[in-house]
């Protein structure tokens, strides 16, 4: 009996020991059954459609599409950069959706996240084509809207740029993580009960996602502050900087 446990345990945990990096939670290709994969695609369509509509409205500004393309490339690049996660003892990478939502708006950020996720699925096998809808909902919709509204709310309360940026990044990451756990447990539960599985998935990913959220928050704050110091005109043109907050 013990030997059987040993073999099973080693077989299951081996990838965790080999892994030098713990990746952000994208649902891998083929995990979700057909029905759920289609449902998440359908749910993501209204957000993508409104995002595309918003992009179309600004199509006359010639720099707009290159900016979005480069932003998608930036989200892709940021997700390739490993940062150490203290508790888990591994490296992970931030999602980058909070910063894109703050700068581009949540709907456009959903489109940018969709493009970045498609690139990740094809080039890195992070996520997948069948799970693109589910990942768009978790990273694009939950991450972008979560981060954006927290940022706007805190700024409306008069919070400093760094504080609002920190909580936007933190909340975007944790919203992504919660939504992914939700989708994953709905997709794989079979005959098992939903809530126990959901809580177990949440617990299983806490060692990476909890510190990663804090790291993402710190990085988002750092980025927003850096942009406000180096190029305040960008933030001012987006209405993110109050008059007199940073000297020009």
């Amino acid at each position, binding site marked *: 009996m013990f030997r059987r446990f040993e073999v099973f345990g080693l077989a299951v945990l081996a990838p965790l020991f080999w892994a030098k990096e713990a990746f952000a939670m994208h649902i891998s290709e083929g995990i979700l059954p057909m029905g759920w994969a289609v449902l998440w695609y359908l749910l993501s369509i209204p957000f993508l459609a409104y995002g*595309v509509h918003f992009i179309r409205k600004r199509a006359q500004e010639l720099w707009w599409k290159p900016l*979005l393309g*480069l932003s*998608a490339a930036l989200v892709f690049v940021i997700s390739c950069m490993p940062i150490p996660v203290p508790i888990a003892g591994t490296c992970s990478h931030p999602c980058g959706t909070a910063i894109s939502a703050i700068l581009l708006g949540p709907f456009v950020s959903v489109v940018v996240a969709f493009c970045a996720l498609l690139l990740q699925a094809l080039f*890195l096998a992070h996520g997948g084509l069948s799970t693109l809808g589910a990942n768009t909902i978790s990273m694009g919709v939950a991450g972008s809207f979560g981060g954006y509204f927290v940022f706007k709310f805190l700024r409306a309360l008069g919070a400093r740029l760094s504080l609002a940026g920190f909580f936007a990044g933190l909340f975007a990451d944790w919203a992504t993580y919660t939504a992914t756990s939700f989708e994953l447990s709905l997709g794989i539960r079979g005959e*098992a009960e939903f809530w*126990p599985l959901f809580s*177990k998935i949440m617990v299983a990913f806490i060692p990476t996602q909890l510190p990663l959220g804090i790291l993402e928050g710190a990085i988002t*704050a750092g980025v927003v502050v850096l942009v406000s110091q180096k190029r305040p005109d960008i933030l001012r043109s987006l209405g993110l900087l109050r008059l007199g907050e940073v000297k020009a």
Partner: protein
Amino acid sequence: MEALKPTFFKIQDLDPRIKLFLCLFYIALLLITDQVFLPLVTLALGLLSLYGIYKSPAKLFHRFEEPAIILAVLILLKSITGSGEVIFSFDLPLVGELSFYQKGLRDSAFIALRVLASVSLVSILKELTPFHQLLSALAWYRVPREIVEILIFADRFMFHLLEEARVIYTAQKNRLGYVGIKKGLSSFSTLAGTLLLRVFDQSQRVALSMSLRGYEGIMPLSSLKGARPSEVIWALMFAGILIGVSLL
């Protein structure tokens, strides 16, 4: 009739629209089928093909690294939340008795097989289809032009940004960046912020240089020739065979 004559072609020469359709159809079948045969054969053939393409076990392993980590957690969770016969159980301090169920293990092993087979399919699609052809195929399938154009820009600039990120990262490391968590976060924020500023500047420059070459907000896409009838017939036959195999 000449056009209907069977011609032999390599997979990479197939029309990208047909390749994309077959890949998605194949993945859909993998998601629908409850038989082990199709995912098992797909995984075996997929691994062989990918080894032939990569010619390196390390590259092959790296491709499956991320799904393997997610799968390890998934197998563990499904095994302890399943039902039916208990394979083994043991006491864990703080957690209590942990039981591993046969059905949960069997279900999760099947999902793992499906995931690895699907990942191998997407990897083959990506390796055997130039990205610009995939984008043309997406446009042909009426994916909104804005998304395709963002993907064109992202594809054009992501490796450029990645290279810039590497240069900045190396410069930071040489100046004792990334030493400790605090310094690491500060360095990473500076890196991400600098890249973001470059994205804004680059998008302006790209738009300017493109407008000088006649860009008016719409990117031309490479046109696809009509698919050969033999390719369509081959694809339909292949899809029929897949349906047959999935029923085995």
